[in-house]
């Protein structure tokens, strides 16, 4: 257990824990676009930058990305100092130049007092901020179906060669984790489309409700050794089935006691 000071308040933290987790636990709201607990932190968006110092640093201070900075005993953290706010403002100004059409970035920038970017906006801008959350979550899943392609200005996130990604299983983890909702997908009846690849959704045998794709279910069955019949029916029908089975047992028990 280590003790750190956040905005003047002494708090406890677990050893090896990242600063951002401690800050969030205190209920302090700082923006962190590329951060998600399920993926390794990489510090791509840099918005979680905070100011740190220690008593024996003789007034020296550092600006660090809190998602990547492990806590240390005696750390004094300032999450909203004027310099930190200035850094975040610049970052959001740049993000807004990159993604002028992203409502999420617009809203966040407005919170920091930026309504229009002072830089030149990107022509044909999409909403991708290149945080790599999607590629990292795909890696955690064990698929790595998408990655960054091309270099420099042309760099985009996408499947290999711009074709249908052969390793994609249509789980939607990338689309769900994307902070700016840039990954397009659609569910149309029993067909899910993502990254231009079409997937069959498993329709419940009883009511036809769809939850996940056949490929994703097969992957779970294989990886986690789950019985395939678990995926045949939807959650609603399974609950009704449980009620009927348990009800049958209740009735049978009554007959026995009578």
């Amino acid at each position, binding site marked *: 257990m280590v003790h750190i000071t956040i905005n003047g308040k002494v708090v406890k933290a677990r050893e090896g824990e990242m600063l951002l987790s401690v800050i969030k636990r205190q209920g302090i709201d700082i923006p962190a676009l590329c951060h998600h607990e*399920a993926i390794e932190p990489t510090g791509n968006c840099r918005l979680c930058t905070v100011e740190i110092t220690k008593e024996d640093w003789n007034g020296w201070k550092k600006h660090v990305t809190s998602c990547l900075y492990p806590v240390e005993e005696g750390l004094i953290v300032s999450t909203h100092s004027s310099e930190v706010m200035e850094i975040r403002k610049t970052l959001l100004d740049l993000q807004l130049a990159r993604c002028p059409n992203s409502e999420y970035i617009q809203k966040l920038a407005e919170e920091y007092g930026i309504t229009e970017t002072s830089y030149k906006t990107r022509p044909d801008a999409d909403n991708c901020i290149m945080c790599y959350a999607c590629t990292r979550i795909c890696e955690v899943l064990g698929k790595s179906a998408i990655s960054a392609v091309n270099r420099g200005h042309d760099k985009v996130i996408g499947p290999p060669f711009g074709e249908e990604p052969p390793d994609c299983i249509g789980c939607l*983890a990338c689309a769900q984790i994307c902070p700016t909702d840039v990954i397009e997908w659609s569910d149309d009846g029993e067909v899910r489309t993502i990254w231009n690849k079409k997937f069959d959704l498993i329709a419940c045998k009883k009511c036809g409700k769809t939850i*996940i794709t056949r490929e994703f279910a097969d992957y779970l069955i294989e990886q986690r050794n789950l019985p395939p019949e*678990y*995926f045949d029916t*939807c*959650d609603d029908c*399974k609950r009704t089935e*449980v009620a009927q089975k*348990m009800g049958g047992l209740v009735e049978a028990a009554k007959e026995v006691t009578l």
Partner: protein
Amino acid sequence: MKFRFKVVPSLCIGCRTCELACAFTHAQDKKPGRSRIYPIAYAQDKYVPVVCLQCDDAACAKSCMFDALKRNEETGAIELDKERCVKCMACVAACPFGCSLVDDVHDEVVKCDLCGGNPACVQFCPTKALVYEKI
């Protein structure tokens, strides 16, 4: 596991108080959450409260590729870590009892967490059809 959550269907009268207790306990932003417990009628006026039974070898926890579902050793509940969940719906599809649910209002996956060791449904059940006991 120190505690056990027990359902006694023969005592259930289908009053749905547990459902209300659950929804209000899990309210966020002044909106009630989706109930994690479902009293379902299997015959006329005969109900079974269907709720997560915190399986030993739980399919939900096994199916989660992001380790968002973990057992709380104190309460025995398999708890969903919202910060780790990416809403891939694997647990919703995998639970053989259909007790991993989607809360449409708050746009999140939810499951019974035994209210951190003091289940609201148990407190409100008028007929003691729901029991949370020490073992």
